[in-house]
């Protein structure tokens, strides 16, 4: 059981390392989008502080989303997905491994860089801590939900954009609670409630998403 999950994680991480661009660039995308906003909006510090949680979360969400289409597409195109579906263990486990690997490559780095970017927006130490925690807790849910969308749109050529259509609505709760946690901290209300909701979302989606994705993948392979 665990062996196959770690095998998948190991392989996906090795591929990500081999391509290099993958890891560095999801991060860079995040950084660039976050830095674009002050450019488009203008440099008033008060305005920026209010914007910070929203902008950081929307950027995290987009960065995650951008890498989703490739989650299964590469494996599908070169026939690896068939082989994975034919391996003698439930496909859901394989997907669990892929979701974890996706998070390690696209979610974790965001959480690590987020406090640095938050400083730019003049957030307090408290708020930075909550921001990191929220991204750490919320991004696995993004990877999980994203996997379902990626599997459903697999092989449909309009896929990349159709994917965002399916996935973004489901991301909204994560965005609201995630930005809400930081906002609540900034306004002194305490973000614990939001954080525990985020944790609940993540657990629910990690438990459920791999199996739904596996079912969708089987349909795509027919």
């Amino acid at each position, binding site marked *: 059981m665990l062996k196959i999950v770690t095998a998948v994680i190991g392989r996906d991480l090795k591929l990500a390392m081999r391509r290099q661009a993958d890891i560095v660039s999801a991060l860079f995308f995040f950084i660039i989008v976050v830095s674009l906003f002050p450019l488009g909006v203008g440099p008033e510090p008060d305005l920026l502080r209010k914007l910070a949680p929203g902008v950081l979360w929307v950027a995290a969400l987009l960065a995650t989303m951008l890498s989703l289409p490739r989650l299964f597409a590469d494996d599908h195109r070169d026939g690896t997905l068939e082989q994975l579906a034919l391996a003698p263990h439930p496909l859901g486990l394989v997907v669990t491994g892929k979701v974890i690997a996706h998070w390690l490559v696209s979610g974790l780095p965001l959480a690590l860089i987020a406090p640095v970017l938050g400083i730019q927006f003049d957030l307090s130490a408290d708020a930075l801590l909550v921001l990191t925690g929220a991204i750490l807790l919320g991004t696995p849910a993004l990877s999980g939900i994203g996997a*379902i969308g990626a599997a*459903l*749109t697999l092989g*449909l050529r*309009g896929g990349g954009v*159709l994917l965002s*259509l*399916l996935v*973004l*609505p*489901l991301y*909204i*709760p994560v965005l*609201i609670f995630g930005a809400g946690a930081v906002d609540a901290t900034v306004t002194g209300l305490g973000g614990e409630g939001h954080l525990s909701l985020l944790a609940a979302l993540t657990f629910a989606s990690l438990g459920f998403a791999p199996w*739904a994705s596996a*079912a*969708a993948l089987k*349909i*795509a392979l*027919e």
Partner: protein
Amino acid sequence: MKDRFNLYRYASPATFYPLAGRMIPYFAALSVLFGLAGLYLGMLVAPTDFQQGEGYRIIFIHVPASWMSMFIYLVMAFWAAIGLAFNTRLSGMMAQALAPTGALMAFLSLWTGALWGKPMWGAWWVWDARLTSELILLFLYIGFMALTAAIDDPKRADKAGGLLLLVGVVNVPIIYFSVKWWNTLHQGSSVNLTKSSMAQTMLWGMLLMALCFWMYSIAVALLRARTIMLERERHTDWVKAELAGVER
């Protein structure tokens, strides 16, 4: 052998098609009847609400539309579950026939809610849990339609769409209970079977309008289902016979 009642017979498009054709006028008529009665009670007879003034009358379409938007989604999810479990042809067609109506109901709920919110809360829109989850519902409908339209093999489209429906079904209880779970602007449920806080005429007006919306949805969905059936089964003998019959 004696003629036994056979569920599968009615789940087959060949028998369902003429049956649906015969039922549509009845549902349409019922819808009009309930609608007229509901509007009469709601718009002409019911007294004003002491808190909200006449603006409350939006309730007579807002609530039925909101209910139907959730209910239709549940029905689609039900068909999806049946389709995935038993592989029946009819279920996918029903889900697809219902989707546009559900989306329109969700849109109406949002539209009337927004028009209600402006005078009551002073804003067209707030990011309250119920409003957000209803918006997500609209996106789920649109996503379902886009997904099934993007897959051209109907069997695969049904399966993938069904899966999406089942995944999204968690949203419905969230919409319904959001007013309980979160302390928000949107008011809680006031329709209660044992004790209602509303005036009797208001309650009856609303229920009649809900019935009107319900019958309307069934009629339109059946109309659309018939078209989809013809399209999908165009190579079967019954459709050819049907088409030849229309000719005459």
